[in-house]
């Protein structure tokens, strides 16, 4: 049977949509009436003319009659709809608990699913905003590591699978010539990458092919926000000269606001300049700093390109052994979203669970209500209410409920989507494109509407199938709606418990894994530490020996500030900073073959760094003021390096070098061993780290390249470090106002950043799991209290026949718990199968962690028991005398 009876549907169509032909039909009917009347009068002896006139007078204006009929019809239709809606609202107001629970369940299901799907559709499903993004590929070492210039140039020369291939390199220059000096996130990249992406500038032009040659490469394209911020959105910016790291660059154009490149690293780039490869650089196979982008030639598959690059690489491997690590070719889309896909899919699974639970909840609530109303329906139809009218009434109720729930769900989805975007960690790409996805909203709304309508209509179908007398009689006894209905409700409850259990196990695993991450010792004490990057690139402080004096003086002034306990500096801070992995060799050991030398993070520090950061020196000493160019080179190594290279030996006094041993190397004596610190991945196995004395590193003291003209200052505060930020800035600027200060961060925030991803997913999963638990508890409670209230008569009878309170309690609880336990069992099996999918999200805990499974099962059983116990206790307190009189 269709949801709406056909004649009714046809009438609705005629009244609302096909009004014109409706009116014509009425007009025709009235005119026919006049003609029939005229025929009648003619038969009585009037002339045709007289008869027609008399008939017209009697009928009155045809239009007027049509008008009246139309008003009446619309009035009747609206009046019955209004009556149904009024009746529904009254009925819902009489059952506020039911209405609130149903609306809340729908809102949570719709809201959560639509919000998460909105994120997924923007992040995973939306193609990247470039021309034919499916043909864009990324070439890297082992998926994430950059490539050396010589390798890139070989690939570009030899690979036939690509139309275009270009390289990009991270660059954070000092910008002057705008409204104020600042350091900006930029990339240097091959001139034809803009063309490869197929994007056009908002103003001016992008690079020409020849502009990556040395001499012509001092040109730049600005990002929209930089242009707005520092150049007052000057529309005639093209041709203007700006200074980057003190050198003159001509601005070529401005990109539109939506333009974002690169999409997976150097996020937030606001300036692009060409990269050039002078001969010395072009032959470099060691300095790996390039990310390679390519556009596949038409019709070439990614696997073909992959095979070709692999072939070229293995040929190069023979020519230059050790210089070619494993090369990976991936689609740009995969590179951008591959890292977050598992997490987002797990979240999608979680919200689908919530949606299913919500629908199951609404379904069994409506079903219970329908059973309760079966008598009402039976009485009304016995009194002559038409089935259509009843269906329409019940349909109205479901639709009103679904609309209220849907409206709340839309509001929730809109709010939740905004909240998600603001809370999401930086690792999720394309977040700026996240907007409420209307398709997702429509889908979830549709699912919930359908649920509501299907189960809301159940009593109307039942009535037509069953004999009224039976329903009325059975109603008198107070039943639970027959075995079929009871089974259906039990099924809903069991599936809710199962789904909630799966979700809670997922959330439990995330909690365990997060706890493991939190308990990781980072090796430093982050509380009270403030860090800031200070750069003198392009200023009068850059040339030696003023540079070292500048940093020394700035630190001295910071130390004198009230509230500062100690201060020092390092080139690259752990987690927040860069990592330069340099290869070294050990004195007295055979010189390793190229590409096989051990490497370590190359960190350069000023005295007092370890004390300020709270990193214990386990053996030997710290770097001292006296470690200068005039004294022998020194190095502090971390435990991991000491253990790896001098197992069982005392590393103090051993010598290493980062230079070529044949070419008058700078030997560094190990003077101390420091505790391991995290590098960038929280909880990863510690790797080799070296700390060299700033005052002994010529490249840091003398080279003008922007790679060496900044330091990260760290200070330990006695109180809240962020309160010190303003005075620290002024202290630095009091030495030189042209120095740029960026990335002023509390070390606590830096540490939090490292676990931001897991924290975010944990939070979401925990929210979804709580919602699922709550909905299931409400569901079990609702069904059990309903069943108890329907069985009042039976329970009264049992008690009258001698059952004790305890017997009744056990009877009711056992019945409810049986269903819950079956659900929990199914849920455990489901969880075992499904949590496997979240393996990549877990740290320090197995996907089948028995503690989590046990604890979650326990929680669920306790929740189910409570939800069962409350109505059961009510049942056991029934007074048999009242119960037997109970309707």
């Amino acid at each position, binding site marked *: 049977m269709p949801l709406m009876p056909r*004649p009714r549907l046809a*009438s609705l169509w005629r009244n609302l949509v096909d009004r014109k032909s409706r009116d014509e*039909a*009425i007009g*025709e*009917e*009235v005119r*026919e*009436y006049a*003609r*029939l*009347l005229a*025929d*009648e009068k003619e038969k009585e002896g009037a002339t045709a003319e007289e008869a027609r006139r008399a008939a017209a007078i*009697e*009928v*009155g204006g045809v239009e*007027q*009659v049509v008008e*009246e*009929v139309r*008003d*009446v*019809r619309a*009035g*009747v*239709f609206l009046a*019955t709809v209004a009556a149904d809606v009024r009746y529904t609202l009254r009925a819902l107001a009489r059952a506020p608990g039911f209405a609130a629970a149903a609306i809340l369940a729908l809102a949570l299901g719709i809201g959560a699913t639509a919000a998460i799907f909105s994120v997924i559709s923007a992040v995973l499903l939306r193609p990247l905003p470039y021309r034919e993004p499916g043909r864009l590929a990324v070439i890297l070492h082992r998926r994430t590591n950059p490539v050396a210039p010589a390798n890139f140039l070989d690939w570009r020369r030899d690979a036939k699978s690509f139309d275009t291939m270009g390289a990009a390199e991270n660059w954070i220059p000092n910008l002057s010539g705008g409204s104020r000096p600042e350091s900006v996130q930029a990339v240097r990249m091959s001139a034809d990458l803009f063309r490869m992406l197929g994007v056009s500038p908002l103003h001016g032009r992008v690079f020409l092919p020849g502009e990556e040659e040395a001499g012509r490469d001092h040109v730049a394209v600005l990002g929209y926000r930089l242009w707005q911020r520092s150049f007052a959105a000057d529309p005639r910016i093209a041709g203007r000269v700006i200074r980057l790291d003190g050198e003159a660059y001509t601005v070529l154009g401005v990109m539109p606001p939506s333009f974002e490149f690169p999409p997976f690293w150097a996020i937030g780039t606001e300036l692009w300049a060409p990269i050039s490869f002078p001969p010395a650089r072009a032959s470099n196979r060691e300095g790996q700093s390039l990310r390679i982008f390519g556009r596949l030639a038409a019709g070439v598959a990614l696997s073909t390109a992959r095979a070709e690059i692999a072939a070229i690489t293995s040929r190069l491997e023979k020519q230059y052994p050790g210089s070619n690590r494993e090369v990976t070719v991936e689609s740009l889309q995969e590179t951008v979203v591959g890292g977050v896909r598992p997490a987002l899919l797990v979240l999608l699974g979680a919200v689908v669970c919530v949606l299913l639970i919500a629908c199951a909840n609404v379904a069994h609530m409506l079903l219970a209500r329908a059973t309760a109303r079966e008598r009402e329906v039976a009485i009304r139809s016995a009194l*002559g209410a*038409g089935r*259509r*009218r009843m269906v329409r009434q019940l349909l109205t109720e479901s639709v009103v409920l679904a609309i209220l729930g849907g409206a709340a769900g839309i509001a929730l989805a809109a709010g939740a989507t905004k909240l998600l975007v603001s809370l999401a960690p930086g690792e999720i790409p394309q977040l700026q494109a996240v907007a409420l996805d209307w398709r997702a909203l429509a889908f979830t709304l549709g699912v919930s509407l359908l649920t509501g309508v299907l189960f809301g209509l159940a009593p109307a179908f039942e009535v037509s199938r069953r004999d009224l007398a039976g329903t009325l009689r059975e109603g008198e006894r107070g039943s639970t709606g027959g075995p079929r209905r009871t089974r259906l409700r039990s099924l809903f409850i069991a599936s809710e418990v199962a789904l909630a259990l799966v979700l809670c196990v997922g959330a439990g695993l995330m909690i365990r894994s997060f706890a493991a991450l939190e308990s990781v010792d980072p090796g430093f004490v982050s509380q009270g530490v403030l860090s800031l990057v200070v750069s003198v690139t392009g200023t009068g402080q850059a040339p030696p020996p003023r540079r070292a004096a500048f940093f020394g003086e700035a630190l001295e002034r910071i130390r004198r500030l009230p509230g500062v306990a100690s201060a020092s500096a390092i080139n690259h801070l752990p987690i927040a900073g860069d990592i330069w992995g340099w290869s070294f060799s050990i004195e007295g050991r055979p010189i390793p073959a190229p590409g096989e030398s051990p490497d370590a993070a190359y960190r350069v520090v000023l005295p007092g760094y370890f004390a300020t950061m709270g990193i214990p020196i386990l053996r030997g000493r710290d770097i001292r003021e006296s470690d200068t160019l005039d004294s022998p080179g020194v190095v502090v190594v971390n435990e991991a390096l000491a253990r790896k290279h001098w197992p069982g030996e005392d590393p103090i006094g051993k010598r290493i070098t980062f230079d070529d041993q044949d070419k008058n190397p700078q030997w560094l004596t190990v003077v101390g061993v420091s505790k391991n610190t995290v590098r960038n991945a929280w909880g990863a196995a510690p790797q080799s780290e070296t700390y060299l004395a700033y005052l002994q590193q010529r490249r840091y003291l003398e080279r003008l390249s922007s790679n060496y003209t900044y330091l990260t200052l760290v200070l330990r505060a006695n109180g809240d470090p962020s309160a010190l930020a303003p005075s620290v800035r002024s202290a630095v600027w009091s030495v030189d106002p042209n120095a740029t200060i960026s990335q002023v961060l509390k070390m606590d925030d830096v540490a939090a950043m490292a676990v931001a991803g897991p924290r975010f997913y944990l939070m979401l999963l925990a929210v979804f799991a709580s919602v699922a638990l709550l909905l299931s508890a409400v569901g079990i409670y609702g069904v059990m209290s309903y069943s108890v209230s329907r069985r009042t008569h039976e329970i009264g009878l049992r008690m009258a026949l001698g059952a004790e309170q305890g017997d009744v309690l056990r009877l009711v609880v056992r019945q409810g718990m049986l269903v819950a336990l079956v659900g929990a069992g199914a849920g455990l099996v489901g969880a075992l199968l499904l949590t496997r999918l979240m393996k990549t999200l877990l740290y320090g805990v197995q996907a089948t962690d028995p503690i989590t499974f046990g604890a979650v099962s326990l929680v669920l059983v306790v929740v189910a028991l409570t939800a069962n116990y409350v109505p059961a206790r009510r049942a056991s307190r029934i007074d048999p005398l009242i119960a037997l009189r109970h309707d």
Partner: protein
Amino acid sequence: MEETPANLLQGTLDLLILKSLTLAELHGLGIARRIGQITRGTFDVKPGSLFPALHRMEEAGWLASSWGESENGRRANYYRLTPAGRRQLRTETEQWGRISLAIASALKTT
């Protein structure tokens, strides 16, 4: 003939229309004539009140209509009772019986 205040007793008109259709399906003029006949000319229903009532009752599900050919070969919209209409007629007849009894006894009381 006197003008009948149809709007004064809307229920009456509905009842008369339902009654007029118990034996056969009729078109608009046929209904008006049938009402005149069964009320012995007391009620003469005009199109201005007849058509709105017919359509309202059709919308309420008591009547159904279809186009057919009249006795003298003209096209006309014929109305017939639906089962709901028959039930409605029964309900209204009982109600009318109660009301007229009540009014009659009220008027007899001194």
